[in-house]
């Protein structure tokens, strides 16, 4: 790593730490931005690097929410009683119970989601291209519908979790740093992963699955591992969201297929598919666009978002990073020999 790069990374890390204190009014917004970065980076693991465009990663987000909530409740009370709206009982959590449940819940959500990813992946990874996208979208929608009919976990009403014990502003900063910690670890993890043999193998699957199969790469195993890793981080992000939102319900906030489920794909396409920084840049741009339209174009925000999706997909599919790579190849260490360039012209 060159010195410039080290300074750049240090600056970004420092900015991450200072951000919630410099902009105290945007605590929740910044936490959501980290959430977008996490889901975009993990989507790019399968979508950009492995060539499997999943529309169902939101399934792990929703499942992570539910698992984290159920673990933290189940450690103290009976879940069926807790979620029963007619019960009317008062359920208090001590600080130790709250934080213990929170951390165990988040970790448990991650582990549970990666196990589920292996099971679902085993069934769906035979599907190729758009069929994989439709199949995973189907899994996410079906899960949302089934959970909203499952009374034990609160049915369509969802679950209300305890509020953060302590000051409201401290709570916002606490959740910001939880998201930021997961986000930074995802970034460091994928940066390392893409440089290993494993990264080369999943890139080979993207480029030509039959050939990489023939070259001795156990494709199904690689696909399952990659999806399980992505699911681990998305599940943790879902678990954090559950505690941050306090109350969530299945269709609009947990398995929000047409909101976050599609946003993460757009973030990656906007930033540049299959690049390290693309998902991060895309998530920042997309979040900015979303918040601006939500504030100034109320009512038309969904139209603007739909238009953004269409325009990105149809006219600007390489994304910001792809465009930069084309315009400024020297920034990416790609050198064009002047002489050869002249000759070919």
């Amino acid at each position: 790593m060159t010195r410039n790069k080290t300074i750049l990374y240090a600056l970004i890390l420092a900015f991450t730490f200072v951000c919630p204190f410099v902009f105290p009014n945007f605590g929740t917004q910044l936490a959501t931005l980290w959430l977008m970065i996490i889901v975009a980076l993990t989507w790019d693991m399968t979508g950009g690097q492995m060539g499997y465009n999943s529309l169902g990663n939101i399934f792990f987000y929703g499942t992570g929410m539910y698992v984290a909530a159920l673990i933290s409740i189940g450690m103290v009370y009976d879940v069926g009683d807790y979620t029963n709206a007619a019960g009317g009982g008062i359920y208090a959590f001590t600080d130790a119970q709250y934080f213990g449940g929170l951390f165990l819940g988040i970790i448990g959500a991650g582990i549970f989601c990666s196990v589920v990813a292996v099971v679902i992946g085993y069934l769906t990874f035979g599907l190729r291209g758009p069929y994989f996208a439709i199949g995973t979208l189907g899994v996410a929608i079906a899960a949302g519908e089934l959970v909203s009919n499952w009374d034990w976990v609160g049915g369509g009403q969802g679950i209300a979790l305890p509020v953060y014990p302590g000051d409201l502003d401290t709570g916002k900063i606490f959740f910001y740093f939880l998201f930021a910690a997961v986000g930074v670890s995802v970034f460091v993890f994928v940066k390392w992963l893409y440089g290993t043999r494993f990264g080369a193998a999943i890139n080979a699957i993207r480029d030509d699955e039959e050939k990489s199969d023939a070259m001795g790469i156990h494709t199904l195993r690689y696909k399952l591992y990659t999806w399980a890793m992505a699911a681990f981080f998305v599940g943790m992000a879902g678990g954090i969201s559950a505690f941050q939102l306090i109350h969530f319900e299945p269709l609009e906030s947990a398995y929000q297929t047409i909101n976050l489920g599609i946003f993460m794909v757009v973030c990656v396409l906007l930033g540049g598919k299959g690049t390290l920084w693309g998902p991060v840049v895309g998530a920042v741009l997309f979040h900015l666009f979303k918040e601006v339209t939500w504030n100034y174009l109320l009512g038309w925000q969904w139209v603007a978002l739909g238009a953004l999706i269409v325009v990105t997909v149809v006219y600007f599919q390489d994304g910001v990073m792809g465009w930069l790579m084309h315009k400024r190849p020297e920034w990416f260490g790609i050198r064009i020999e002047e002489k050869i360039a002249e000759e070919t012209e």
Partner: protein
Amino acid sequence: MDQILGNIGLLLEFPVVNLKIVLDGIMVGALFALAAYGLALVWGVMNVKNLAQGDFVISGGYVSWWLVQHGFPALLGVPIAFVVMWGIGWVVYKLVISRVIERDLFTSLLATFGLAIMMAQILNLLFGSDTQSVDLDYDVLYFFDGFIDVPIAKLIGVLMATALAAGVIIFMKSSRMGQAIRATAQDARAARVMGIDTEKVYAFTFSLNSAICGAAGAIIVMVWVIQPFYGISYSIRAFVIVTAAGLGNLPGVIAAGLGIGALEQYGAHIFGIGYQQAIAVMLLLLVLLVRLIQQRRNRQVLK
């Protein structure tokens, strides 16, 4: 669990209930089959998977509903919705679809998903989020001591759907344009060599699909209700049907449409109405899995 067993018992105790469920299912299924046929057409001819299919249906419904609000007779809504949605389909083709045909399939899937979000929200802004329907003042026919009720409006709807499907089939079989569409579906490059303007064929096919959906929507608004965000459920069902039946298999699409209509009604009766959407999606997954296992059997391995 007891409730589910009770519902199954009811089916065995009163066989007439089965007949009612099947009839209802066929009526719903006929309209699903129309939307699915349009999808199969676009999918087969230009290799575009249109996730906005359901939103074209709902838009057609709103065209008809708006006309009725302004004093037009309800039955006139179907042909007018056909024409209006033809125009909208053409505009959508020129702006978006024409640019994604040559791209990979995920691009068209995502682009039409964005389109679906836009259309649903524009309908919501124009007409509000209430459910709407058009009342037809026709009688209801009763059979088997009132066990089975068939509103004449629904009968008219099914008849119109059948007539539309028949019209499209005859058109595809016998007209020059129909021939050109079928030729392009077989091999676009060869068709171009033979002097067929494939760009025109694509535009025509997509407009035709949009018009079929629009007419289906105009029928739906007469017999059920529509709402701006109902589109996605029609899209999912269209995908289930086409995936199950295969492309270019018209009798298959119709049979699958009717079958899924009936299956869904059975599922809703047995498990409760809350599971209706879930059942449609589970059917999609089931179809995909069955197809996967079928293909796995064909896969050859060197040992």
